[in-house]
């Protein structure tokens, strides 16, 4: 399922959180939107998933305009998002949490609870099925967030920083899970702050800073882009890095 944003903009008071962002996520791809803290990544996800209404621009899901549609309606069309700040249904077990997602396509309770089990195994939560969601570690909660979204049988997944807050080993364990999602035919569009992980995963990357896209291309291309380096490391950083690289002994 493809996703197209055209000229999306939103301001909060005087802050232009997202300005004129246009991008197309191709069907079947694994792509990422990266940028420094506060660049507007999560706001952009909010706009395409229906949680925020854009001041200008439009969103098309597989050719159909979904601008301004309610989040639940967008989810029903096959695009499901996760949240950066994981939000489990704390009073319920892992199985019950995932079943809420499964209920989107499965009205029967027993079947939804059964389906939850299969989804839990897919993301490595099989052993924690009957635990209360509140007892999970951060890594476990990230997996639960993913599992619930997956249970809605999405064609396109919007992953909001599923790797943030994980230690290197947990990141390494999560990467094959995300790869497997794409391999199963789901289009994956992720927001990440952790650059290194994205470089390993995504084939197409957009970089956002101060609400505007500043670069697009393959991971290799964007990391060589001077504007991207400056956005992450500060004004003049690209020039200094080049200088350093040019000096003998630093190459």
């Amino acid at each position, binding site marked *: 399922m493809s996703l197209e944003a055209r000229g999306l903009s939103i301001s909060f008071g005087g802050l232009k959180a997202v300005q004129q962002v246009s991008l197309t996520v191709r069907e079947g791809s694994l792509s990422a939107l990266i940028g420094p803290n506060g660049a507007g990544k999560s706001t952009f996800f909010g706009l395409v*998933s229906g*949680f925020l209404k854009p001041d200008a621009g439009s969103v098309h899901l597989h050719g159909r305009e979904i601008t301004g549609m*309610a*989040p*639940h*309606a967008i*989810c*029903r069309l096959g695009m*499901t*998002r*996760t*949240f950066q700040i994981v*939000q*489990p*249904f*704390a*009073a*319920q077990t892992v199985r*019950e949490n995932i*079943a*809420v*997602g499964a*209920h*989107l396509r*499965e*009205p*029967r*309770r027993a079947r*939804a609870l059964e389906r939850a089990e299969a989804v839990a195994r897919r993301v490595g939560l099989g052993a924690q099925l009957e635990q209360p969601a509140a007892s999970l570690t951060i890594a476990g909660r990230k997996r639960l967030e993913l599992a*619930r*979204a997956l*249970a*809605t049988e999405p064609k396109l997944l919007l992953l909001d920083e599923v790797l943030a807050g994980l230690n290197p080993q947990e990141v390494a364990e999560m990467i094959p899970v995300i790869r497997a999602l794409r391999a199963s035919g789901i289009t994956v569009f992720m927001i990440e702050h952790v650059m290194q992980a994205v470089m390993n995963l995504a084939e197409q990357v957009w970089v956002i800073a101060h609400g505007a896209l500043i670069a697009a291309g393959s991971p290799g291309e964007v990391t060589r882009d001077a504007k991207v380096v400056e956005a992450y490391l500060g004004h003049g950083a690209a020039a200094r890095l080049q200088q350093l690289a040019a000096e003998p002994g630093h190459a």
Partner: protein
Amino acid sequence: MRPLALIAGLAGAVALLPAVVESGFVLNMAIMTLYTALIAQAWNILGGFGGQFSFGHAVFFGTGAYAMAVLQVKLGLNAWLALPVALTLGAAVGAMIGALTFRYGLRGSYFALVTLAFAEVFRILANTFQFTGAGVGIQIPLRESAADLQFAGKPGFLFAILALTVASLVIAWWLKHSRYGAWLQAVRDNEDSAAALGVDVFRVKLAAIALSGALMSAGGAFYLQYFRYVDPHIAYGPAISVEALLAAIVGGMGTIFGPLLGALVLHGLGEATRSLMQNAPGINLVIYGVLLVLIVMFLPRGIAGLFGRKA
């Protein structure tokens, strides 16, 4: 024990009560406990399962009681025909309040305050209009026959309230075992997450307040048939709102048997304090207050929480 079996067992035991006990006091006690369990369960559906804390459930209770009274006395309708109208009106008032508050995203204390305000507005309206008997209230004539939903003795009323309370327990059981219930509890725990998973938060909450309103108005309808009198303060005053939420919170919010347990504890405590401290009327309210504070502090999942998650 499985919840449905437990509900059936309890219903059977209570139904046999009149056969073994003749004491009007005991039967009245059972009737009032079941009645509190019913209105607490009504509150529990919206507050416990849905996380929307109402401080004004009297608005539905009063609507049920007044609907029964006005339809019988002013329009001459049979009580059995008036009952479904009363339930429908309770649901309609719920849907109206829900549409107004949930549409604008009122949550938490704002929702609580708005429900309280609605109950007060209804109380003032009932106090004003002639067709609700204004400040005098309405008395329904004594017709002690089952055909008029009045009974010659306590057992008839016991069976009637038992049927309503069992129905409310089965609804709570259904919420624990259905897609709608899963959606409602997901909305309670996190609205944004629920919406992201395809749950229509507004409609789920609207259905909950309508269902809760219908059950609460059933409580009001029963009250009217049992006591045959209603006035604005009884119908829409804060006492009934507090009774419903108190029993639900003490017993255990979001559980099947919590409201029943809460009703048992409150009536037990109420009777005990009345007999121990006869010269201090109203002392039971003080004790309820202390109990509420203790439960909220030490047993946030109520008495039912002591019996594990499935209660």
